[in-house]
C-alpha cells in the first residue's frame, strides 16, 4: 500500500509539510459521502484560501422512512451546535488508523517503557471525511437523533 505523500514529505519542515498536504487535498475530487449510524456527511467546494484548506459540509439525518433528510446547517450554527460553513483546516491529517495499514508508528510508554505500534494508511478521502464528520457531530438531527 503506497504512501506517496508521506514519502514525499521526508525532510520537509513542519510548515512545508502542512502546505504540501493542503495542496494534495485541494487537488482531490470530493470523496463519496460518509455514513455513520443515523448521519450522512458530504463535503464539496474543496479549495484553498490563503494557503488553508477549505471546504463546505452537508449533513443528512434519517427521515424515519428509510430515506435521508437534509439538515439545516445554518439553523444549527445559530443554535450554537457548530461553527458553520466553510470549514477550514490547518495542517490536515492524511493518515487514518488501519490495523492492516503499512505506516507504522511506535510509541513507548515513558514509565513502563513498553513499546506499542499503531498502524495507519495514507487515505486523504477518509481523513477529510473524518474531519467533516467530527466537526458536525454535535448537530441535532431530524427526529432528535445524534
Amino acid at each position: 500500500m503506497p504512501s506517496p505523500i508521506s514519502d514525499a514529505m521526508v525532510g520537509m519542515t513542519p510548515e512545508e509539510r502542512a502546505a504540501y498536504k493542503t495542496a494534495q487535498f485541494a487537488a482531490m475530487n470530493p470523496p463519496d459521502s460518509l455514513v455513520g449510524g443515523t448521519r450522512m456527511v458530504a463535503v464539496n467546494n474543496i479549495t484553498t484560501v490563503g494557503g488553508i484548506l477549505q471546504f463546505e459540509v452537508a449533513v443528512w439525518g434519517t427521515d424515519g422512512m428509510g430515506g435521508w433528510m437534509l439538515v439545516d446547517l445554518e439553523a444549527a450554527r445559530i443554535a450554537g451546535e457548530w461553527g458553520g460553513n466553510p470549514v477550514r483546516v490547518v495542517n490536515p491529517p492524511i493518515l487514518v488508523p488501519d490495523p492492516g495499514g503499512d505506516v507504522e508508528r511506535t510509541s513507548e510508554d515513558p514509565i513502563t517503557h513498553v513499546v506499542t505500534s499503531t498502524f495507519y494508511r495514507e487515505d486523504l478521502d477518509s481523513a477529510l471525511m473524518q474531519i467533516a464528520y467530527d466537526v458536525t457531530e454535535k448537530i441535532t438531527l431530524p427526529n432528535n437523533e445524534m
Partner: protein
Amino acid sequence: MSTLVVYADTSDEAMGSDDGYGQDFDTAWNGTYSAARSGTGYSRYPIYSGVEAVGQEYAVGNVFYDGDDHYYDWFAVYESFLAFDTSSIPDGDTVSAAVLRVTSYADYSTTNFDIQARLHDWGTTADWVAGADLSGLTLLGSYATSGGFTATTGYDFSDTAMAANVNKTGSTRMLFCSSRTVGNNAPTTTEYVNIYSADESGTTRDPKLTVTYAAGSTEVYDGPGPTLDAWIIATRTGSFTAAAILKRTQVGSFTADAAIKSTVAGSFTTNAVLLRGQTGSFAANAITLKAASSSFTAAATIKATVADSTKADAIRLRTFWFGRVEDGF
C-alpha cells in the same frame, strides 16, 4: 461564521521530572515529591516516545543495580506542551468558541484527576514549569479522567478560557498538567495518561483545536436609544445622542455638538449646525441656514431666508423680515 480546525504542530513535547532513583549507589534512593514537582530532583528529561504524558506517579521497591540491591522511593511528574497554528484567523475577527480535543492512548489514572490545559508560550523548545508556578498560568480548559479515558477515543476539553486566548497572530501554545500537580497532591500510585501526539504526516488522532470565529462586524442601529460618538445615517426615527453627526433626515429629538442636516422636523440643540431647512425652534452658537420658518437664537449665523423673529450676536442675512433684534451685522 467560519469553522477552523487546527491540528497540532509536530513540535509538541513532553517532559518528565523525577526524584528518588540512582542518586547514590551506596544508600537507599529516597526521593521526594516536592523535588520532582519543582523540577529540582534527580532529573528532568524530554520524553521522545511518540505520546504525550500528563500526570504523576509514585513507585517503591528494590532494584538490582551495579552489583547491589537498592531500595527506591520514586516520584515522577509529567507535563506536555502543545502548539496550534491559529495565525490564519484575521486579527479583527471574533472567536466565539474553541474546543480542544485529544485522543487517549492509554489511561493509567488509578487516581483520577483533571487534565488541565494552561496558557503557556513555551516558544519552540519546552522547559519544565515548576508545579508551584502552574496555578499562575491561565486555565484554558480541562478534562476529568473520572469520565473515562478509553484508548483511541477522542475527548473534548471544557472551554474555560480557550476562546478568549486563541492567538490570532501566531500559534496558540499551551501546557498540559494534572490538577493534582497544581494542587500539590503527592501521588500514592500511578495517576497519569498518555495522549496521541502530533505525527509528522498527521493522523486523525492528532490533538486538534476547533475554533469558531466570525468576521468583525459593523453594527447598524435604527432603534431607539443608542449613544454614539459619530454616526452617518440616512433615516432616523428614534431619539439618540451623538457627539458629531451628518444626517439627511431627522424626525425625533436629538442633541449634537456638531451637525449638518438637510431637514429637521423636531426640536434640537446643537453647538454648531449647518441646515438647509428648519421648521422648529432651536438654539445654536453658530449656524449657517438657507431657510428658517420659526424662531431661533444664534451667537453667529449665516442665513439665506428668515421668516420669523431671530436674535443673533452676529448675523449675515440675504432677506430681511420684521421682528428681528440684531446686535449688529
